[in-house]
């Protein structure tokens, strides 16, 4: 289970912030554990890790959301905390592009939705469906050419074998506080 915390940008600049439980995740039609989902844009990864820009859709009470996301080769799926709500997902999504590629070329979500048991814009509750593009890179940008707006997810991938302290990583320290005296470790 994952708690999606999107900022849903409305057409007139309003932002709603529903917190939504995701209990089913599909990436390119394959079921994955929602435990792979994260909002954490700062990721420590092994050398050679690759990110694939993607978009994902999820149904909410007021209409379907579309969000940029990124699928990492280590399995994690990073989802942006910014989303649009498309009242007419099926009819409008052709106007949206992912990193410049029209979603009709990347792959429209209708097939994913149908495979997940949905119909048209009506996704089953709790499903988040992701579709990757045939490209790699740390940034996923959804652009809406009609309304001239963009949603962006930028990843910061830090190599896991790099130590920010160099060879001088300190030991953890224990502070006592206002007792003004030595306190023995009590555990």
């Amino acid at each position, binding site marked *: 289970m994952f708690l999606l915390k999107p900022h849903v940008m409305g057409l007139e600049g309003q932002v709603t912030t529903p917190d939504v439980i995701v209990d089913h995740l599909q990436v390119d039609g394959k079921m994955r554990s929602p435990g792979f989902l994260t909002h954490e844009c700062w990721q420590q990864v092994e050398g050679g890790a690759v990110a694939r820009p993607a978009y994902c859709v999820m149904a909410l009470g007021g209409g379907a959301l579309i969000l940029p996301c990124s699928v990492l080769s280590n399995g994690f799926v990073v989802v942006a905390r910014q989303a649009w709500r498309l009242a007419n997902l099926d009819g409008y999504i052709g106007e949206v592009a992912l990193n410049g590629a029209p979603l009709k070329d990347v792959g429209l979500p209708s097939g994913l939705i149908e495979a997940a048991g949905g119909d048209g814009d009506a996704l089953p509750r709790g499903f988040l469906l992701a579709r990757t593009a045939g490209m790699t890179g740390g940034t996923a940008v959804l652009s809406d050419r009609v309304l001239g707006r963009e949603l962006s997810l930028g990843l*910061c991938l830090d190599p896991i074998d790099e130590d920010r302290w160099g060879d001088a990583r300190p030991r953890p320290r224990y502070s006592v506080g206002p007792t003004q005296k030595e306190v023995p470790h009590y555990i």
Partner: protein
Amino acid sequence: MPYKAYAATMQSVWFSDDEGTSWNRLLTPTGGFYNEARVWAVHTHADRPGEVLAGSDQGLYRYTEGAGRFDYIPSPMDSLHILKIAQSPADPDFIVCGTRPAEIFISEDNGASWRRSNLDASTECWFINTSRVTSIHFDPADADTIWITVEIDGVFRSTDRGRTWEMIVRGLHDNDTHDLVFRDRDGGGRTVLCSTEDGVHRSDDNGRTWRQLEVPQAKWDYFRSLKQPAENSDTVIASVGDKPSGEAGELLISKDFGESWDLCEMSHPANSTIWTIGSNAADTSLLFAATIFGQIFKSVDGGESWLKAKRELGEIRMIAWAPV
């Protein structure tokens, strides 16, 4: 001068656009912010009128007057508590955030990218279990130097824009440090004051050593916020309470940078420790102060006297005001 006041509370950020009389939150459907988010920090910058940075348990947010909403700023701090925010006076794109656990995160591009600083603060604390950053200050004389206080671990200073830190606690009676103010003298010489759980401490050698000040006017030792209404002035306002969170508090004013203190005149007794004082260089006579349990006081005479607002909020962690 039209201004807004901002209060960081355990129920989001409250705004006042009528000089602190009434307070409201943004509308949930349009405001971009969960109205029961815990918010510890609100921060404004003179070069960014109408902009407020807010540190919460949901991440870092930026309010802009034009948009009338909070926008989320992606950062590595989403799962931490963002307790303090500072922006370089010379460069508002240079943002420093302090968190619980005690870590420092720095952006030099207005929040587009972040680095975790190598702060070696304590990783466990007997008294509060988890140490935390209680204040962040850009050095008034050196744009690359940053000072912070950590509860409970002391005073730290970085002279390289937050890359490395030095712990400077020699002479402090107590490492439960809360706030700092600076006074640079014409012709050289600097005095720094540090508020702690055990009184105010003074350094005359740029933090190398500290000594505790006698403040007989204070009923209690628990000093929290220090504020100079005007930058680099001799006048300092200090907040004191019986304990955290406490049941009583008072404000003191010094006009000789801590040599002597007087009690401020307050219209009502404080219901808990006065946790925060908000000032702005745009008007050095106007200040706000708030107790941790929701009282708001305002001064229009540079901190000499304080009038309690009728409106009270819930738990308040920071109060600020800025021209709009």
